[in-house]
C-alpha cells in the first residue's frame, strides 16, 4: 500500500476527499465509483434489511398469512404452471391483477410489492427482450417501419412485440406469485412445508442451518472487510493486491467455516443429535386451507381455460 501514500508529511488524501455526502439536500462532495469493499458491505446490509422486513410482514395477520404453508406451497406451483402455459397477454395481465388483490388482502404494502417486482427483474427483462421485437431477430409482420434493407421494410414486428409482452408479463406474474408466498410465510414454516411435501430430511436440515449461517458468515465477511479498510490508507484499488486480498479472504472464510462446522457438529452430537429433525408445532390443515386449495385449482383452471377461450 506504500504506493498510494507518497508524501507522509502532508494530510492524507482520504481525509480531505469527500465520498458520498449524507446531507438530505442531496450529494455533496465528490462521488467516487465504490470499491468492491463498499459494494460488499452495502450488499450485506441490504440482505439483512430485506430479510428482516420479510419476517416482519409475515407476522401480520392478513389473508395469506392465515393459510397453511403446505397449501400455499403447492398452490404456488400449480399457479406457476398455469401461468407458464398461458399464450395470451391479456390473460397474463388479469392474473397479475389477481396477485395485486391478494397482496392487498394480505396487508402487504402495495407500493413495496409492485416495486419489488417491477424495479428489478421485469424492467431488466424488458431491456433484454427489446431486440427481439425487431424484424432482424423475430421475422414476421412489420407494424412500425424503422428502416429498410434492400427494399424490404424493417422494424418492429407484431410477432416480436407479442413475444416480448408475453415474456415480460409472464416473468412479472411469476415473480409476484413467489414474492406473495415468501412475504407471507415465516421461513421456518416454509421449511416445515418443504419437508411435508416430500423434500428429504437431510436437505431440509441443511437448508435450515444454511439459512442461519448466511447471517453469521455475512457478519464475518463484514468484519473482515471493515478490519481491512481500517488498516488501509487510501483505496484498496482493483489491481493484483485487491485480487489477492479477495481470494485470501475467501480462503480464510472457507477455513473458518470448516472449523465452525466441526464445532457445531460436536455440539449437536453432544446434545443428542442422531440425524433426525424434530419440529415443535405440527401444522394443521383447516377448512380454510381446503377452501384455499379449491380456489387455487379454480384459479388455475380459469387462467388456463380463459387462455384457451380467448384463443391462442
Amino acid at each position, binding site marked *: 500500500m506504500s504506493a498510494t501514500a507518497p508524501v507522509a508529511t502532508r494530510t492524507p488524501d482520504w481525509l480531505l476527499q469527500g465520498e458520498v455526502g449524507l446531507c438530505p439536500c442531496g450529494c455533496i462532495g465528490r462521488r467516487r465509483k465504490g470499491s468492491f469493499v463498499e459494494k460488499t458491505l452495502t450488499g450485506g446490509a441490504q440482505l439483512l434489511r*430485506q430479510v428482516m422486513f420479510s419476517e416482519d410482514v409475515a407476522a401480520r395477520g392478513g389473508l395469506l398469512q392465515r393459510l397453511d404453508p403446505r397449501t400455499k406451497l403447492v398452490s404456488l406451483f400449480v399457479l406457476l404452471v398455469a401461468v407458464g402455459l398461458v399464450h395470451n397477454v391479456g390473460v397474463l395481465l388479469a392474473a397479475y391483477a389477481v396477485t395485486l388483490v391478494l397482496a392487498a388482502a394480505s396487508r402487504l404494502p402495495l407500493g413495496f410489492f409492485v416495486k419489488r417486482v417491477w424495479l428489478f427483474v421485469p424492467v*431488466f427483462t424488458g431491456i433484454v427482450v427489446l431486440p427481439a421485437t425487431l424484424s432482424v431477430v423475430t421475422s414476421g409482420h412489420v407494424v412500425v417501419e424503422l428502416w429498410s434493407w434492400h427494399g424490404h421494410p424493417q422494424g418492429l414486428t407484431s410477432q416480436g412485440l407479442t413475444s416480448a409482452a408475453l415474456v415480460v408479463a409472464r416473468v412479472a406474474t411469476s415473480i409476484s406469485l413467489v414474492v406473495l408466498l415468501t412475504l407471507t410465510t415465516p421461513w421456518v414454516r416454509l421449511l416445515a412445508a418443504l419437508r411435508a411435501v416430500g423434500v428429504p430430511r437431510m436437505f431440509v436440515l441443511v437448508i435450515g442451518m444454511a439459512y442461519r449461517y448466511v447471517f453469521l458468515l455475512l457478519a464475518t465477511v463484514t468484519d473482515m472487510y471493515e478490519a481491512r479498510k481500517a488498516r488501509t490508507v487510501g483505496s484498496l484499488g482493483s489491481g493484483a493486491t485487491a485480487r489477492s486480498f479477495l481470494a485470501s479472504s475467501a480462503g480464510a472464510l472457507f477455513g473458518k467455516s470448516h472449523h465452525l462446522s466441526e464445532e457445531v457438529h460436536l455440539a*449437536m452430537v453432544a446434545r443428542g443429535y442422531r440425524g433426525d429433525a424434530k419440529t415443535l408445532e405440527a401444522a394443521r390443515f383447516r377448512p380454510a386451507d381446503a377452501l384455499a386449495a379449491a380456489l387455487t385449482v379454480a384459479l388455475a383452471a380459469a387462467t388456463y381455460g380463459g387462455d384457451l377461450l380467448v384463443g391462442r
Partner: protein
Amino acid sequence: MHIPDGYLSPQTCAVGYAVAAPVWYLASQRVTKVVKTRNVPLLAVFAALSFLVMMFNIPIPDGTTAHAVGGVVVAIVLGPWAAVIAVSVALLFQALLFGDGGVLAYGANVVNMAILLPFVGYAVYRLVAGRSPLDSTRRVVAAAAGGYAGINAAALAAAVEFGIQPDLFRTSSGAPLYSPYHLSQTIPAMALPHLTFAGAAEAILTGGVLAYLARADVRRLVPSHPGVPLSAGDAPSPRRHRVLTPGRVTAAFLALAVVLTPLGLLAPGGAFGEDSPADLDLGRAGIDAVPAGLEKYNGFWSHTLLGGYGFSDGQHATLAYLLSAVVGIAVVALLVFAVASAVGTVSRRRGGSGDATADVPVGTSA
C-alpha cells in the same frame, strides 16, 4: 445465469426437474454414506458460503447475470456430490428470498449451476492437476482452469435451454412464447461474458482459495485428495483404484457429446456434397462433371433410420435432430465402452495391473 420463471416453458422446466431429481438422490446417498451426521453442518456452512459468493451479480445484456458460483471450490474441498447439495441449497435461497432464479426454473438452474458446473469443473481440475503435490502451483492452476471450465459449461447449458425455446414453442402467428432468441443468438450472448468476466471471476476465486488453503492449511485438503502427497518431498500412499475405468471413459464421452450436441443446430448447411452430388459447386472445384465414382456410390446405402437427421416427413427438424443425436450418442457410447473394456483387459493381461505405467508416483525420484 439464473433463469427466472417465464423464460422457459413449463415442459423444459419439467425436464430440468427430471434430470435434477436422480442426481439429488444420488448426492444425498453418497454424502450421507461417507461421513454421516457430520455432513449436515458442513454442507450447511458451504451452502451459505456459496450463497454469499453468488450475491454479487454483474448484469450482462442477455437476460441474466454473471457472477462467480463457488461450486468448483466446494467440489475440490468436499467432492462434487457435496457441491451438488451445497449449490442447490444456495440456489433455493436465491429463488425464494430474492426472486433471483425462478421456482419452476429451479430444476434447470440446478442442472446448470449445481450439477454441470461442479462436475465439469472438478473433472478439469483432476485432469490438469494429475498427481502433483497438494501445495504445488500446478494444483492452483488446475483449480483456476476448473473454475473457468465449470462456469462456462453452465453458461453454455443455460444458453442451450434458452435457445431451443423459440423453435419448440410459438403462437399460431409465429411469435415465440418464451425466450425469443435462437441458439445462434443465445450461445454467443452467454459465451462472451462468461468466457471473459464471469470465467475470470470464477477462476480467480477458485485458484485463489486453493492457493490460500495450500499455504495456510493444506491438511484441510487431505480428506478429499486420498493418495496425493502433501508436498513434493512426501512419498505418496499407493493409489487405490484405476482412474480410467471403461465406465468412466464412457461417462466422460457421454457428457462431452451431450454438451456439444446443440452446436449442430447452429451449422448453416451440409458438408461438402454430403447430401447429394448436385449440391457440389463444381465450377469452383475446377471440374465440369460429377466424378464417376461419386456418382456411382452416391445413394449406395439408403436404408437409414433418420435420413438427413430428420423424420421422413421433414417435420419437427429440431426434435428430429435431437433424437438423432440421442441415438448416435448411445451407439458411439456403447462402442467407446467396448473399446475401453478391451484396452483394459489387454493391458491388465500384459502388465499384471492395468495402470502399472500410469501409476509411477510423483515423489519417488526425489
